[in-house]
């Protein structure tokens, strides 16, 4: 349920910026998908920010990185709050 709620938040944000957006966990050379949203753009994915072992990837033509990171931060803090109960 929580995952569905956060997926929907990512969907909304991705649609707002017309990008595909996702969080992945770094494991050695591997980035494993965690959660995200938006439709495929067939453009190179760009790692726009890292929080600990997690990275924020964006695929899109043009977007404001700072704004996206700020909004991702908001979603993640909500998630952390939920986790803390």
């Amino acid at each position, binding site marked *: 349920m929580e995952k569905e709620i956060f997926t929907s938040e990512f969907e909304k944000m991705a649609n707002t910026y017309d990008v595909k957006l996702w969080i*992945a966990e770094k*494991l050695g050379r*591997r980035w*494993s*998908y965690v959660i995200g949203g938006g439709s495929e753009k*067939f453009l190179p*994915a760009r790692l726009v920010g890292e929080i600990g072992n997690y*990275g924020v990837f964006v695929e899109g*033509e043009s977007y404001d990185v700072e704004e996206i990171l700020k909004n991702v931060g908001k979603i993640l803090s909500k998630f952390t709050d939920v986790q803390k109960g």
Partner: protein
Amino acid sequence: MKAETNWVQNVVKEEEYEHYMDGGKDFIDDDEIWEKIEKHKSPETGRIRSIIQKSFNLDLLSPDDTAALLNVKDPQLWDEIFDAAGKIKRKVYDNRIVTFAPLYCSNFCVNNCLYCGFRSDNKDEKRLKLTLDDVRHEIEVLAGKIGHKRLVVVYGEHPVSDVNYMADTIRTIYDVKVKTRKGIGEIRRVNVNAAPMSVEDLKILKDVGVGTYQVFQETYHHKTYSEVHPKGTLKANYQWRLYSMHRALEAGIDDVAIGALFGLYDWRFEVMGLLYHAIELEKRFGIGPHTVSFPRLEEAQNVAFDTLKYKVSDEDFKKLIAVLRLSIPYTGMILTAREPAQVRREVLPIGITQTDASTKIGIGAYSEIYGAEKMSEKENAQDLGKQQFMIGDPRDLDDVVRELAQMGYITSFCTAGYRCGRTGTNIMTLLKSEKEGQFCKLNAILTFREWLDDFASDETKKIGEELIKREMSEVKAKMPKIYSEKTVKTLENYHERIKNGERDLYF
């Protein structure tokens, strides 16, 4: 010997799979599988055609539908199934064939599987384990001379090749960079074929960044499984093996691969077993198998198994591949150099997505560390005293790439997905929505360009250049319906930069 015994006693952790079982039963019900195969003994043509159509939705088929396909007798209907299998492959993966090489790191093994050359009772097998220096030498050949970017590393089950050794070898592989004609050669994705492991060990593998983790069940038939894996050995525990992928997914490895060794039991049963395995993984984790393998049992040294009883004919081999393609439409399907070139040519168009070439399966065989094979004596070069089985197609990568190009396929060296989070549920969605194939096309062009410039013979390069032109035109033709102008421009830009010596640019 005592240390080995202690190690063996601590490998299996029943508590890590028992909670997945239902009333003490695993998800493979032998009787149910045979009942379904019997029940659909004479499927009507109309029903088969509707199952074929259903498979184009790219969802798993039901066991009843797969059982019906397995019972088709009409050769014309089989032709329709083969044709559909090829179309489904193209729908999901386009015309690309990913290539890789196996790297056998160690053949020490505590098991005694009756069909395997590595069995502990085979005293004629020369037991070897690559040192990290040996690994470096092997990679210098694989990545620096042949041009592979993707490996599957193989280890026998033994304390000398435990998970720490695996992690060390994988780190070493990733570290090797070799100067090539115009750029740098390196291995970018290491898949692992190893024994079942605990969640704790799998987390160690996850942390070094493995690509796909594969464990083959060998046979899904319980009775046969216990007959060929002698009691008292680690591998005798059917469920420990069957739930390997559950533990891998639990550990966070989200690209998992399954397979069966065809020839141990009835091939139709094994196809059903693979389907049930895929259904179980999707149900539990929402992630099906990244790839399915279907090796046929081959001649090995000092085996104690009747390899003829369930031998899979070439005709049935083709059928099982097609039925698997229709039953698990989104999965990658791996055809290896175990098979002779002629068989590979015939079955490739019915759904194969990955294949190996320049294959050597002896320990240290690529760099001939242990005085191994000379490729100039291809037919006699294989030494069963140092390898698990005989390979059927020893052609080198250049020959295979050229032939694939002549057949209309582009060889892809792409390893992009797992380096940008196209894994797990993300890749499953992309595969089922036919979008992954669009990525495959772009990355196939870019990695093929790298390989042509760094490794191809003149003859292959000439054919390859034509193929790239054709692929570029196809991409442009899909604009704007699939690709945007920006995508095409980026592709052209990357292509030019690669021609000028840059490497590892990908979508």
